Structure formats: structure tokens, C-alpha cells
């Protein structure tokens, strides 16, 4: 099988879902990313990314928790699947390997 590929934004979204744990749905994910990264993210971008991640099998979802505030509509809660966790770990491992391979003087120059 081809190695999992995660885009940068996909990775951020996937991580955020993991961070929010039980309460990850469209609105919280969007707001969380905005707060944490400080960049303005469109809701539609988050929405399509979530969809794509679910199609790839990194996320699973279920509907629940309707509130009056939402006009009685349910939320779609996302949880990271095993494949998703694996993919995240893999990305992290690659990053760490690369960091480790960084020569010490370069690391110092970067202020590490």
C-alpha cells in the first residue's frame, strides 16, 4: 500500500480533532484552529478537509447533540480512527527523524 499522505492543513485538522477529543465538531474545530494557529480559517475549508479525511479513513463520525442554538440540528462529532492515529504518528516520526538528523551547529543557529 502507498504510504499515507497528509497535507499540512490536513495534519493540523487531524491533530485538532485529536486534541478536542470528545467534543470535536465543525464549529469547535474551526475555532480551535483559529485560536491555536492565529490564522483565519474558512469554515468551508475545514468542512471539506474533514470530509476528505473521513473518506481517507482517518476520521470516523457520528451525529448527535442537537441544540436550540443550531436550530435543532444535530452536530457531526469526529473521532480519529486507528489509521488516523497511525498516520499522525508516522508524520511525527518522520519529523523527529529529520530533526534528529539536523547537524548540532544548524540547530544552534535556529535558536534551539
Amino acid at each position: 500500500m502507498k504510504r499515507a499522505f497528509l497535507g499540512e492543513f490536513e495534519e493540523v485538522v487531524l491533530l485538532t480533532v485529536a486534541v478536542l477529543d470528545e467534543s470535536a465538531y465543525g464549529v469547535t474545530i474551526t475555532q480551535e484552529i483559529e485560536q491555536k494557529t492565529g490564522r483565519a480559517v474558512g469554515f468551508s475549508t475545514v468542512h471539506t478537509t474533514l470530509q476528505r479525511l473521513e473518506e481517507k479513513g482517518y476520521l470516523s463520525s457520528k451525529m448527535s447533540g442537537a441544540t436550540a442554538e443550531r436550530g435543532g440540528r444535530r452536530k457531526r462529532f469526529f473521532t480519529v480512527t486507528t489509521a488516523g492515529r497511525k498516520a499522525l504518528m508516522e508524520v511525527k516520526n518522520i519529523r523527529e527523524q529529520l530533526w534528529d538528523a539536523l547537524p548540532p551547529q544548524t540547530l544552534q543557529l535556529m535558536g534551539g
Partner: protein
Amino acid sequence: MQNQKPPRWLSLLLSRLGDPNTLEEVQGDLLELYAHWVETVGERKARWRYGLSVLKLMRPFAQRNEEYSTSLLSPVMIRNYVKIAFRNLAKSKGYSFINVTGLAVGMACTVVLFLVVKHETSYDRHYANGDRIYRLETENIKEKHSYPGTYTGMANALHADLPEAERVVPLLQVGGTTFADPSSENRYKEKFVFAGNELFQLLDYQWLAGNPKTALSQPNTIVLTRTYAEKYFGSTDVMGKTIRLDDKQNLQVAGILEDYPVTTSFPFNMLVSFSTIKNVNPDYDLNRWNGWNDNFQVYVLLKKGIDPESLTKRFQGIVVKYMGKEALPDKRFFLNSVSNLHYGMNMSGRTANVSLLKTLSFIGLLVLLIACFNFINLSTAQAFKRAKEVGIRKAVGSNRWSLVYQFLTEAGLLTCLAILIAVLLAQLVLPIAAGALAVPITATDLFSWQTGLFTVALAGLTTLLAGVYPAFRLSGMEPIWALKNNTLAQGRPWFSLRQGLVVVQFTVSLILISCAMLINQQLTFFQKADLGFNKEAIITVGLPNNKPEKLQTFRNQLAELPQIKDVSFSFNSASAESNWMQSMQYRKGAEAIDVKTQMKMGDSRFLDTYGIQLLAGEKLRDSDTSSTSFKLLANEIFLDRIGIKHPADAIGEKVYYGDGKEFATIVGVVKNFNVNSLHQKIDPTVIQVVPNNFYQAGIKLQSEKPTAETIQAALARIEEAWTATFPNQVFDYSFLDETLKQAYQSETRTAKLIEVSTFLAVLIACLGLFGLATFTAEQRTKEIGVRKVLGASVGSIIGLLSRDFLKLVLIAVVLASPIAWYAMSEWLRNFEFKIEIQWWIFALTGLLMAAIALLTVSFQSVKAALMNPVKSLRSE
């Protein structure tokens, strides 16, 4: 919280166009976010963000392109369909050729017909006030006939008594008048119209020079179109120049118009101011209420929002006021919309022949249908060849729809090829078709967006028509059957759809052939019919002036010419399109018999010149003009109407003009001759000498069958004599037999068109037959081989292969004959004098068709029969 609702239309948009699978949570999320945004960034920005999100989530933009589609109409599959379709077309080149040719010819017909119909229905649609322009028409209630013209008093009456009219525009059209540029001797015979400035407000005109408000205010002014300005003066800078009308009156050019579009019923090139009428024709009465002429028409521009139907009372009022109460039961006026003018009599002389157009469209569709049938036949015939393909595709997992699409793509590809060729063909034949139909369309009409749209629609329709049945038929095969047996179904039905379609094709062809033959018979009949007078070798010339001394000079000059046998001055020829009708009364004791009679006004030479036979009594004399003793000749039908049996008994009887006191005495009886075209019965007719109604000279040449040289010589001498008698006029002549032929122009045209479509239909049907024969021969190669080995003769094999097709032709003959017979007897009802439909026509067409079919099939069957059986049996 009321104001925290996002804009409704955006929410609506989302619910309509969002992805239904995720719609619920998306709607919820956005509502929640909206509230959040309102609090954090304010309502205006919140709305903005909300809108942006909705837009991005709408499906056309939010489509997920990573999705791997399994749809049968995904680009990958479509590419595959097209590729396979190309391969299949290339593989069976012969069949593809037949299909493309047939479809192309059929579609070219349809495209040309579309252009014709589009042209004929586009007349008078371009005026800015078009929906308010009407023509006032006059109806004779008793005759049940309405006329485009009206009384000359009507224009004034409408001004006074029809307040609903914004403008009243009288027009008087005059034909055959000589116009000249006095400075250059450019002289032409023209048709022109008397009009006022109101006309320019009624219709839309573009002015090159002159003032539309005043151009035709004064008497003796004229407005020309660009073309006519160039015709007379060679430039358009001609304001104030002079044109001479009929050698009597100088007119000053007061305006130049841009040329009118082709699709108008008002093609006026020369407009003379209305007030000029009195200078040209001082007797012209503009307040006449008895008798009218179709050349005088009145147009009305109604005020906005007036319904023409609501004016009935007004018109009744006009009848009562100007014609008296007693006229009410017989006369009615009504308004006819300008958009209807092209379908009836109008001033352009061009009328759409609706029934001819309908027939044509119908035939065009039939030709297209025949071509589609070819496609259906050939593709189902090939079913057997493609059974394996279908079987394997199905076994591998293709579903039925993908096969349907596959076959439809093949049909579509063929149609596209065909339509390209069809457009080329249409461009080639358009000038010919336009000439044959007398419709002014050109190749530029072919490349308009309407034609483009029509072509695309036509291609789609043809694809479906030709492709749907084969697609479903072929894709429906059981894979097991297709792979295992690979032979045609056992126990063939005695009559398959394929045979049915061939029968339809032949039926249509046969109907067309027999119609073409019968129409031609009728046309020959027109040519050969005994008209009761002799139309050969007669030249007619107009007389611009009929003063007795002028006529005498002209006659004397002609009398000297050796080529000329006889000359007669008359109102019109022995048979003519426009006639003088007169009510005559025969009083027998107390009883009065009214006869609607045609007046022929001619001099003493009339009978001899036209070869009309005198049955009793004596000929007229040129001196028979005294009002105290009018004399006339009557024809047999006239005698019949007034109840006199023997011609000799009629001599000396008196007949009265209408119910008046004036009468004339019958001095002779002539044999019946066709005073009208053969469409109509012979009217009761009388001949009388009325010199001031002589408008034409009939000149009979010496030889019955003159050669081109003698005619030329005679014409030159006649022109000399004519110009000497009538200086400053344009000499104009015609041959009587050709003039008479024009009455049958519409029939000649129909005949030509039916001949062409017959040819095309037969051609396409034969192409299809040829394809089917090829296929049958191929399929039965083995059988033929075995038969030959066992001793079958070549003849018997040809018979075997041809018999099936002949059977179909026979069925088609049986079907076609009654239909053709019915259609033609309907058509022949148009004529008072007509041929009998004989049975042998149908037998002959049947034989002809059988021969054509046999010839088409024999090419293949002979080839198959002559083939060496060793070859056909050896190959597997």
C-alpha cells in the same frame, strides 16, 4: 436574538445547493458560527463570512475531485465509449458509409427546409410598433371572401370616425409605369406606391437623406431607396434631382431611404407623395364608396392597448354612415394584424404557400426517417456480429447501461459526421433550392445561431431516433446465449421489425414515385389540353395609350410586316389571370335570369387572332360601338345559362347589363374556350368591342412553330413599330404560351420538389437495402457454399437471396397504392380540368420499384452465387 439570524436567501441557497449528505450538520455549524461571528467581529462581517462559506459549500464548487467515480458517464468512460465507437466505425467502413451518407442527405434536406420555413415565418416581425399595425380589410359577407383592398373613401372616414387610431395610412400601388431620368434617357418600367409621410411613422425606415416629416408633404415629390437612387443616377447624392413619371409629370427627389430588409411585405422602392395622384390622374376619386381595388389599401396604427376586436361597432357605424343601412348584411370591415400579411395577398406579391410548406416539411421528415431506419436496420442486422463482444463485456462485468451508452455513442458519432456533411451539402444545394422554391435565402442564413441550435437539436434527435432501439436491443442480449450459440434466434418470427422498417421505406418511396408520376401527368395535361383557342406563336405587348388614332397607326405599321399574320387589340388575352366580371341579365317574359359573366373586350380580329371558333351568327365589327346598338358574341355556356339550346336561336336576343336599361344584342355564338386557367371552370363569357378598354395587343405570327430567328426578327420589327407609335415608353412583350404557363407555376414547383425528394428517398432506401443484402449474403456464405456443392445453380441461389426482398416490395406496393391514390385525388380536386388516375400507374411504380430493388440486391446476390464454394467452406 432576532437579529442574529443570517440572511434568509443565503440559507435557502445552501439548503437547495448544498450536499444533501452533510447538509444537516453544515447548516447547524454555520448557524452556531454566525452567532459567534456576530459577537466577535460584528454583524456585517459575520454576514460576509456566512455568505462566503455558503458559496464555497455549494456543490459545483465543493465537488470533491479526489473521488474515484464509478459513474458510467464519467470522463474516463466517455473517452472509452468514443474510442470504441471510432474503432467500430472504422472496422465496418461499408456500413458506416451507408449510414453517414443516408443520414447526411436526410439531414441536409431537413436543414434546408428549416431555413425555408424560418424565412417564410419571419416576415413583418421587425417593426417597432408591429403589434399595433393593422390592415383594414373588406369582407363580402355573401361571397364569404375578404379582400385586402378597400374603398378610397375609407382613409377620410377613419380619420373622422375611428378615434382609436393613432395613424391612418392609405397606400395606392401602381404597376407598369415608365419612369425616366430626363437628363440621361435612363428609362425603366416600374411598380411604385403613392404614400404620405404617415407611412414613415408606421413602419421603421432609415433615412440616408431627407426629412421623414416633410418629404412627401408636397405634390410631385418622390422618395427612393438606395438601390433605386443608384439605378437611376448612379449615386445616392441625388436630393432635388428630377424623375419623370409616365412622360407626364416631373417628380423631385425629396428623400433617400436605406434598402428595406428582404422579409417585408412593403418592398417599396419608389414612394410618390399621395397628393401627386391628382396631377397624374385628375379623375381619381378619393371619396369613392362603390367598387374597390386591391391596390388601394389602408393601414392603421392603433393607440396603445386597443383591441382590434373591440372596434366592430365602429366599423358597422362606418358602413351605415357612408354606404347606408342596406349594406350592413353584405359588407364588413375588420383589422388584420401586419404579421399575417405574408400569408395572404399583400403588396410585395410574395406570399407564403402554407400548404406547400407543410407538405415539404412532412416529406423532409420522411426522408430523414428513412435514413434513420437504415441505421436501425443495419445496426440490428449486425447484432449477430457483435453478439460476442456484448457477451464478453457482460461476462467481464459491464452492466447494461454502459452498453447502451456505448451504442448510443456510436450512433452519436455517426450523426455528428453526418451533420458536418449535411451542412456542407446544404450549403451546396441552398442556391438551387432557393431558386426552385422562389425563396430569397442565401448561404449567410445557414450560419446563424438559430440554424446552429436547430442543427444541434436535430443531431440529438436523430441520434436518439436512430440509436435507441439498436442500443436497447443489442445490450439486452443474454451473455450466455451470446457466447454459446452465437447464431440467430431459432424459429425466426415470420415478420421482423427489420422487415417492417424496409416495408415502410419502400412504401414511402413508392408513394412519392407515384405522386411524382401523377403530378407530371397533370402538368403534361395542362400543356396539351385543348383550350378552345390557339396559344401558339402569339406575342402580347402592352398599350400605354389606347386612343383610336394611335391604335390605327400601330396596326397599319404592323400590317406591313411579312412575319405577322394578325393583330388584335383587346382588354386581355383569351385566357388571363385578371378578368372583368359583369352581371348580365336575360329577360324572358316576366322572368329575369342573372348571369355572372366574364367580359372579353376585343376588336373585330379577336376571334381570328386567338383561333376561337364561331358556331353561329357573324363576327363583330370595329364599328360596333354605338351605345344604341351594342353587339356581342356569347359562348355556349352563356347560352346554356340563359336556357337557349341551339346557337342559331340565340342570334338577335337581347341581354341587359345588370338590372339597368342598357342592353346588347347577341350577334354570334362562339365555341367554349378556357377563359381561366384549368384550375377553374369556364365562365359564361361575352365578347364586345370596347376600344377605351384596350390595353394589350395580341400579335399572331405567320408560322405556327416559329424558330428563334424568326421570333427575334419579328420582335425587332414590332418594337420598331411600337416605339414609333408610343415614343418615350418602355417596350415590353411576352409570349402567350409562357404567360399561360405561369398559372401552373405552383404545380410545376411542387412537381420539381417531389421529384427531388423522391430521388433522395429512393436513393437512401436503396443504400439501406444494399447494406442489408450485403449482410445477408455474408451471413449465408456457408449455406450458399453447401448448396452449390450439392448442385444448386447460380440462378436458383440468386432467386433465393432476392426472394425475401421482393416479398417486402410487394407488401409495400399493396400499402402504398391506396395511400398514393387518396393523396393524389385530394390534390387533383384543385383543378376543374384534370386527368383520371389509372390503375396502371401503381402497377408501373411497383414494377419500377421491384426492378430497382432487384438491381440493388442482385449486385450482392450474384457475387455470392458466383463465389467458389471451396473458398467459402474452407475458411472458418
